[in-house]
Each structure stands twice: as C-alpha cells, then as structure tokens.
C-alpha cells in the first residue's frame, strides 16, 4: 500500500489496520511504503506512473477530485462483492464520489471541532460551549479570554485548517458549487472576513505568518498561550493530553448556533495501474470492516467511518465530547474540492497573512485565488 508515512505515529496507525485485520485472517498482510504527508500528494502521482506501483493507495475525501485519474471506480466491485456501502458515513461517501462513481472506501469521518482550554475559560468566567455555539457568543468569549498574554484564538494561515472555512461551512457556505470553485459567494466571503477581523480588528488572536504550519498555533494552544483553536478530531489525543490545562471540545460556531460539520476523512482506493483490482478490493474490505475501523479508532483515535463502531472510538472519552462529534457527524457535509484545490490552499496561505493583518479584504483575497486557480 502506498500512503503517507510522516513519522512512526503514522506507521503505527497503518500497522493498527493490519493488526486488527489479522484477528479475523491471520495470514493477512500489507506492505507499507510512502513519503511524508506533505510530499504524498506530489509523489503519489509520480510513484503510480512508475513500474511496480502498489495497488492500494490512500486518499482524503477532500483530495478525491485531485486524484481522480489515479483511482478506479469501486461501484461494480462493491456490488459484485455484496458490500453495503450505506454503512459508511454518508458525507464521506459523497466526498469520495467523483463524476458519479465511488473512488475510495473511507476508514474515518472527522468533523472539524473547536477545542478550548477549560482552565482558561473558567479563569475568564466564560461558560463552556457545547453542541450549540453562536458566532456572536464566540466573539464575545474570545474578547473575555484575551488578557494577560493569552490570545482568545490560535490561528493557522491555511484555508481548510484556518478558522474561516470551517465557520463558513458551519453556516452552510461551501467553497465548491457544481464542481467549480465558489469562493466568492457572499456567505463564504463574510465568514472569512469575520475570521480575518478576529485578528485584524478585534485583536483576539495572533495573526499567523504565511510559512507557519498548523504546528505553530497548536503549540500556542498547548502551551496555554491561546484559549481556543479550531482543529480536527485527529488531534484529540495530542491536544487533550499535552495541553497545559484541561481541554474540551465544542461545535464550530455558526450564526444560528446550529452548526453544519465540515467532515474530512481518508479512504483506501485502488490505483488505476493495478492489475488485480479484485484482490486489491478484497484486501481493502478486510481493513474497513466495522470491527477494524472501530479497533483502529480505539487504538489511534481516528473517528470511525462506520456509525456502529463509534462506541469503540468513544471509549472513556467524556460524554460531552462524544456528543459534539456525534452532532457534527449527523449534520455534517463533506469538504468537496476541485482538482486545483492544492493551488487554492497554497495561494490562500500566501495571502492570508495580509487578511489577518487587515491590509487586504477577504473579497480581494478570495477573488485573486479564484482567478489564479481556474
């Protein structure tokens, strides 16, 4: 299998799939190879162009459009193997559907959430948010939290990873419409401007630099210098165990308070160059059973793509946190992108430092990106 292996943590995750599948089929095995996550999206294309390329690859739902030429439709294989696709998270299946055909079997479905430092909220007299959270309350809480060297919100420079897109999504404003970029729709622009203004006008967050990765704001949050951060559930174990202070999660704030979850997640797919697609599909199905995705969720913290396996992931997590994830999964929509999404993300990171410093508006930045990433 060709996948991203950034560190031993990634390798352990993939090994967890193999180990869980071995419980049912002791002879099962998968050979793993691949570069770091950041290099993966370039190298998967060159690796699959060369001879002896692996049959199984991993993809994210958000990248399914970008990798559509590399993968094959799985609908017929699923039908002939009597696989009930409806057991998987619907948003993930929608996100993995390209030109009407399914391109991957999801193993997780991860709605972006809002993490908060309970100790800092208590010190500022701010009530802990939960499954309902309005943007006006959010802005007011951030103001109360910003004091004594602590920022209300830790902000990364990226689009999908930044606060703007998840908040736009929570309001139902998506970046792609009918397969085309729709970055300049008024709702998305307004929500992105709201996110920019949190740093530029309200001064409740530190404006990021273009070259900051997600690790910079995460470190800010973990060290107690920021009280809140918007991030994926895949960071749950890290953020809850390594932050100075207790951590809770809430839905991403929206105007109405009833947020639509922005679901991201990954899947196993079959490479177009694979000679034995039937065997590859059978192997994928061995590592995406409810038992396996549940076991991996319990061991590695990924939110399973199958609802019946959620209890394994929930384990001993606080009931309030589990409820937040369940609520976002129920309301969630997939982050559907376009083949030029990498350009959107890169260009946004380039320009966002100006947005968060108030020298450019969301309208200007999103229009520029739309024009360059046609």
């Amino acid at each position, binding site marked *: 299998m060709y996948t991203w292996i950034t560190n031993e943590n990634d390798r352990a995750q993939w090994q967890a799939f193999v180990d869980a599948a071995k419980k049912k089929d002791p002879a099962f095995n998968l050979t793993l190879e691949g570069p770091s996550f950041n290099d993966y999206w370039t190298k998967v294309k060159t690796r699959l162009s060369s001879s002896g390329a692996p049959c199984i690859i991993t993809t994210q739902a958000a990248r399914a459009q970008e990798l559509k030429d590399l993968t094959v439709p799985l609908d017929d294989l699923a039908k002939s193997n009597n696989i009930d696709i409806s057991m998987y998270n619907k948003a993930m299946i929608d996100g993995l559907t390209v030109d009407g055909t399914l391109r991957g079997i999801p193993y997780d479905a991860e709605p972006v959430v809002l993490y908060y430092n309970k100790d800092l909220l208590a010190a500022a007299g701010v009530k802990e948010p939960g499954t309902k959270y309005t943007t006006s309350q959010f802005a007011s809480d951030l103001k109360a939290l910003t004091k004594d060297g602590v920022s209300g919100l830790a902000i990364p420079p990226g689009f999908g990873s930044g606060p703007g897109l998840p908040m736009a999504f929570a309001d139902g404003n998506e970046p792609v419409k009918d397969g085309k970029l729709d970055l300049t729709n008024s709702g998305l622009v307004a929500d992105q401007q709201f996110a920019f203004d949190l740093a530029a006008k309200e001064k409740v967050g530190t404006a990021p630099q273009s*070259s900051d990765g997600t690790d910079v704001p995460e470190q800010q949050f973990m060290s107690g210098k920021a009280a809140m951060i918007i991030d994926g559930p895949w960071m749950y174990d890290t953020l809850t165990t390594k932050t100075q202070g207790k951590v809770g999660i809430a839905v991403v704030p929206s105007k109405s308070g009833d947020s639509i979850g922005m679901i991201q997640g990954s899947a196993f797919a079959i490479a177009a160059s694979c000679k034995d697609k039937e065997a590859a599909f059978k192997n994928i199905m061995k590592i995406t059973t409810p038992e396996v995705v549940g076991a991996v969720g319990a061991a590695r913290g990924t939110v399973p793509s199958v609802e019946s396996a959620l209890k394994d992931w929930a384990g001993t997590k606080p009931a309030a946190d589990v409820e937040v994830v369940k609520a976002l999964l129920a309301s969630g929509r997939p982050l559907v992108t376009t083949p030029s999404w990498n*350009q959107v993300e890169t260009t946004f990171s380039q320009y966002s430092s100006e947005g968060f410093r108030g*020298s450019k508006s969301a309208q200007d930045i999103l229009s520029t990106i739309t024009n360059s990433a046609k």
Partner: protein
Amino acid sequence: MTALPTLAVKNAKKPAGVTGHGKLAALYLAPGMLGFFIFIVVPLIASLVISLFDWPLFGTPKFVGLDNYIRMLSGDPVFWTVLGNTLFFAVCYTVLNLVLALGLSTWLHSLGSWGPFFRVLFFVPVVTPMVANALVWRLMLTDDGVVNSFLANFGIAGPSWLSDSQLAMGSLIAMSVWQGVGYNIIVLGAGLNGISPNLLEAARIDGAGAWQRFFRVVLPMLSPSLFFCTVMTIIGSFKVFTQPYLLTLGGPGESTNTIVLYLYRNGFSFDKLGYASALAWALFVIVMLITALQFSQQKRLVNYDN
C-alpha cells in the same frame, strides 16, 4: 601535470606524417561530456518538449503548442510579478553582496594573522545547510522572535519582518547576503593575495594615497575575481528558492514569490509541468542573456594584465 601537446601551439599547422591527438582528447573528454549530455542536454531538450504540452504529473499529456508561452507572457499577471520580484532580489542581493564582500575581504587582507580566522568565520554560513539557516532566521524574524524581543527591551514595537509586504523582501535579501557573502570573501581574498606588493609599493612611492591605490591599482588588478564573483552571484540570485519557500512561502501576497518558487509550485504542487517548463525556459533565456551581456563587456571592464 603534462599538457596536451595539441593545445600548446595556437594555429600551428600539423606537420605532414604526424598523427593528431583527436582520439585521445575525445577519450579524456568523454566522461565529462557524457555527464553534460545526460544531465544537462537531455533534460534541457525534454523540458523544451514538455513546455509544448499540458503535462500533468499523472495522466496523458496533451499537445498545446505555444499556449504555455502565450499564457505566461500575456495571460498570467503573476508571472510578471514574480519576474519583477526576482529582478529586484537579484539586483539588491548582487550589489550588496559584492560591496560587502569587497569591503570585508580588503579589511581581512590587512588584518594580518587574524585574517584567516575571520575568513573562516564568514564562510561558515556558506557551508551550513540553507534550510537550517532559513529556520534560524525565521525564529529571529517572527513577530515575537529574537529581533522584536530585543527591540521590545528599548520600548520599540518591532514590525512584522516576514509578514509586511514592504519588509519581507528586504528580510530575504538580508538573510541571503549573510548566507552568501562568505564565498565571495574567499574568492576576492584569493584575488587580493595575487596582487604583487611591489605594485602597491611603487604606487605608494609615486605618491598615490590609500583611496587612489585602491581604485587605481587594487580594483583593476582584482577585476578578474570581481568579474567571476559578479557572474556567479547574479546566476545564483536568479535561482533563489529556499529562502522564500521557508521564510515567507512567497507571501505576503506575491511580494516574495520568485520565479523558481513559482515554477516549482506549478510543476509539483499545481500539476502543471508544461507551464513550469515554459517558466524554466524563460528563466534560462533571461540568465543566458544577462551572462552573455556580462561576457560581452569583459574585455572592456576586466584587466588580465599582471
């Protein structure tokens, strides 16, 4: 070392009955030429071919003729921005680098036994990996980095060195000069060591002052080394990549986006190998023309007399 006899006599007629050394010369040249052919000529031709296609990293290329070049020259405003940025960087970096290197190498030349020590000190950033240097500078120049923390001690609120479009390019140039000046100090130092002290002594006896000796004797005698440094520094400056990639990601906006960063992204992030190849050819032509212009002025500006 024995020189090839054929090179010894210019324009000499080969005596009748004497066999040439063409085969021997070809044998000596073969390894180098083979490497040049495989690693330079073939990729050069391949990139020219790719530039005529819409060529994704995976999938079937589609022939588009000169479309990539037309788009580059008339339909892509970012190309002209990154070209302007690259030219600005090249001019500022080259001038600052050469002026600093010339001043420092002259100072070190007069320093006596401490000269070599400082020369090594200035050369350390050259041999340190660029990535490590860039990360250290990033820590220094972030909003709450070392520089602004230092300024805060004096009650000065430091600017956003890497996120202010007016300052970001200046920060890149400063970091690049710090990284690259040591190489030119070594080359110019060697050039200064090659100037006969008798010449300077004669100039002194003739009544030339320190500045006159520098401008009338040292500078002309140093011109071959300066010419080499200028050519290599300009070529290097057009290829700037790591500094914007790691320090600013080309931002804020496009203010530090350079042509090599832009072509890298088009090729390996945006899946547009054909367009990236067209950008590479534009860069190749620009650098070739500037280098040719420099060589055309060589006879006028460079003094090879001992």
